[in-house]
């Protein structure tokens, strides 16, 4: 059996990085949300905010733990799967990853302990400060990672000598042209995604008539957040798109399904792109809309896929559909924000069943949009690994396809088990609700993220914390044996 090593290495990396991104995206948003709840608690003294902050902190702990274990893998996969890329770009983006470890990982690790286990041990202001620092740490982490990624998309501040990139200007390396847009787009996506989860959980409780007071607070905060950030995300996305048009026009052409540069600037609403025939089947297009969106004029021209030879084009259909999926979800969230705001204004937010019912299903949409967006931007870079400088096929490790295939199977297996277990615990926590969250801290002073995940998960399975599993469980097993 013959394996295509490039494709396999890409699938493996896409699999591990896609799994990983779900959790950081959620924890960036969730740590910020918990911080806001704690600040409200500090300001108003309302116990409701305290209760909510504790509830979401437990879900944060489980998500953070899964982000950590899946993240360690990635720091080695650059080398295992893309060694020639590591060598090519190590001088330039290696330091960005180095700074991520030094500035973000340790900041998070230090204050996470207080955030997760400090509830009964430190004053509220310190707890709030620790949560804020964790939220800042996750955002700093995003800063460096997106900086490195942006350099791969729009490299600047370097020079190539003997086939290796060398830094010339660090500011230009870190702040490459697409970086500000990508960072803003991703952070907003993280906050929006989290707001959608909070809304869905709140709506679920309201429909079931459980934890009503807490659920109303969640729904109100989430609707407010979505009402503001969803339209904002559209604006940022538009700016990001214009930036991409300037620096990576072929990517935009693939997103739009635009084959010929000379065609009028129609916006293709639907179609089935055919890479070989170089055209769309079953196309439905809106005249002038493409020009209007991309050049902000009616007859503006922009490049089509024919501006580069066929072997330098990204997989058009993937980009075309993933882009539409992302935008569709964005529009759905804008509509949700507006509908929620109108209902709130009329005082019917908590009584309108169709809205709550719809909202309760929204929890995964943000994650789907984030993955779709990353598929667009990463596949849109193909066939380049570092845009215009290094082809993906040239960045590959000299590793046999069979090795990559074998480990890919293992990754799918292990991640499947570990992550489905983790997600099962998160769902149990949500089912249990905020009331169960206020409880005594466990004995001792654990300070690592996974220990809090355990505490949270134990609550999810209905065992009382603080009781200590030791005795209780020994009794259980003894009974089990007899």
């Amino acid at each position, binding site marked *: 059996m013959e394996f295509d090593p490039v494709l396999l290495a890409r699938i493996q990396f896409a699999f591990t990085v896609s799994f990983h991104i779900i959790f950081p995206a959620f924890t960036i948003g969730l740590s910020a949300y918990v911080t806001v709840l704690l600040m409200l608690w500090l300001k108003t003294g309302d116990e409701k905010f305290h209760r909510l902050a504790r509830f979401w902190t437990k879900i944060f702990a489980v998500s953070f*733990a899964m982000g*950590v*274990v899946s993240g*360690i893998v990635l*720091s*080695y996969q*650059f*080398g*295992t799967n893309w*060694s020639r890329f*590591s*060598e090519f*770009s*190590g*001088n330039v983006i*290696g*330091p960005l*990853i*180095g*700074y991520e*470890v*030094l500035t973000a*990982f*340790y900041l998070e*690790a*230090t204050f996470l302990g207080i955030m997760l286990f400090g509830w009964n041990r430190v004053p509220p202001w310190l707890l709030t400060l620790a949560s804020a620092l964790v939220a800042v740490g996750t955002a700093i982490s995003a800063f460096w990672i997106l900086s490195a990624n942006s350099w791969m998309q729009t490299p600047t501040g370097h020079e190539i000598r003997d086939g290796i990139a060398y*830094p010339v200007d660090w500011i230009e390396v870190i702040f490459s042209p697409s970086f500000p847009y990508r960072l803003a787009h991703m952070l907003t996506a993280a906050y929006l995604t989290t707001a959608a989860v909070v809304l869905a959980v709140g709506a679920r409780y309201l429909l079931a008539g459980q934890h009503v007071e807490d659920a109303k607070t969640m729904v109100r905060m989430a609707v407010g957040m979505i009402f503001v950030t969803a339209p904002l995300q559209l604006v940022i996305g538009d700016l990001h798109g214009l930036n991409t048009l300037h620096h990576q026009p072929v990517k935009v052409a693939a997103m739009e399904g635009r084959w010929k540069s000379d065609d009028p600037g129609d916006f293709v609403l639907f179609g089935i792109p055919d890479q070989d025939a170089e055209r769309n089947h079953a196309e439905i297009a809106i005249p002038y809309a493409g020009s209007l969106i991309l050049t902000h004029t009616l007859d503006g021209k922009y490049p089509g896929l024919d501006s580069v030879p066929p072997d330098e084009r990204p997989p058009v259909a993937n980009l075309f559909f993933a882009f539409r999926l992302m935008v569709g979800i964005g529009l759905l969230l804008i509509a949700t924000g507006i509908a929620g705001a109108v209902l709130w204004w009329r005082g019917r937010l908590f009584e309108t069943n169709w809205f709550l019912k719809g909202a309760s299903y929204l929890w995964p949409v943000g994650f789907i949009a984030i993955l779709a967006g990353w598929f667009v931007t990463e596949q849109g870079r193909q066939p380049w690994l570092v845009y215009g400088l290094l082809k993906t096929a040239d960045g590959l*490790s*000299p*590793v*046999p396809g*069979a*090795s990559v295939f*074998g*480990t890919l199977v*293992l990754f799918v297996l*292990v991640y499947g088990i*570990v992550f489905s*277990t*983790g997600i099962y*615990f998160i769902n149990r926590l949500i089912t249990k609700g905020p009331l169960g969250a206020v409880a005594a801290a*466990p004995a*001792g*002073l*654990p*300070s*690592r993220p*996974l*220990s809090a*995940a*355990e505490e949270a*998960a134990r609550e999810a*399975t209905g065992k009382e914390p603080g009781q*200590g*599993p*030791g005795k209780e469980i*020994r009794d*259980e*097993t003894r009974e*089990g044996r007899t």
Partner: protein
Amino acid sequence: MEWYLPVIWAGLIGTAVAMYVLLDGFDLGIGILFPFAKKEEERDVMMNSVAPFWDGNETWLILGGGGLWVAFPKAYAVIMPAFYLPVIGMLLALVLRGVSFEFRWVAKPGHKWWDIAFAGGSTVAAFLQGAILGGLVQGVNVVDGQYAGGAFDWLTPFSVLTGLAVVAGYALLGATWLIMRTSGPTHQMGKAFAPVLLLLVLAGMAIVSLWTPYSVERIAERWFSLPNFYFLWPVPAVTALVAILILRWLKNGHDALPFIGTVVLFLLGYAGLVISTVPYLVPPHLTFWDTAAAPESQIFVLIGTVFLLPLVLGYTAFVYWIFRGKVAPGEGYH
């Protein structure tokens, strides 16, 4: 100034790897010894004795791997593909054992599979780390700065030996950790296992010390040429002395000294390997200087490291201080 930057970075990464081996070594060792505990409560105590530390310990692995890419991208680009299978196997083993720390408690009483994942993951990770080390010492086939070997080049009788030696070594760290940090049955278990493990480790060290100079001329020359031999003979001599001291401390019932002695033993073994391979980062072809990142890149990160690494060390020390003292049976933080 360009010649000493790679040396500073080699020192930094060497330190990160040593920190990792010692710190994650004892908690992986707990996992290796896990199946030998007779009772449920003993396993609980064993796990509780390392639970607050393990993932801080593993952060050094990220620093080691990330640091290698930052400072020596060409070495990173050779080592990772050369050890593709053991590196990914190790990472997956670490994922499995890492989550076992928590899932095991949640799954109780049906936690058998997470016990197996914890013990199996720890043992596999330790073995593969040792095998990678052995493969690296033996040498990596490099042509034009790229790895030019097969998927299983790393798997040799020698690397199997170093893999087993590291399993025994981590288990020894774990056993002496149990002596130091627990009392009751697990303390006794540590005492029972430590001498046997110590002998296994010494045997491993002795075989490696004879095998490497015998099979690699460069290493023989490093150790046995004059005047090197005058300076280097104390390394094996002190190792033997420390081993005798550990045995005596074990017999006399010291709590902390066997662990500290084992740490010294590890550092001596590590020093021996460093002496054998310096200045090669990827023996026998690539040195620190061959594989170094551009000086401007090394300086850029070094500046940050100077300020941030002390902070990291301080935090690590703080966590260990918070959790000082013995873990009594039945009294865990869980």
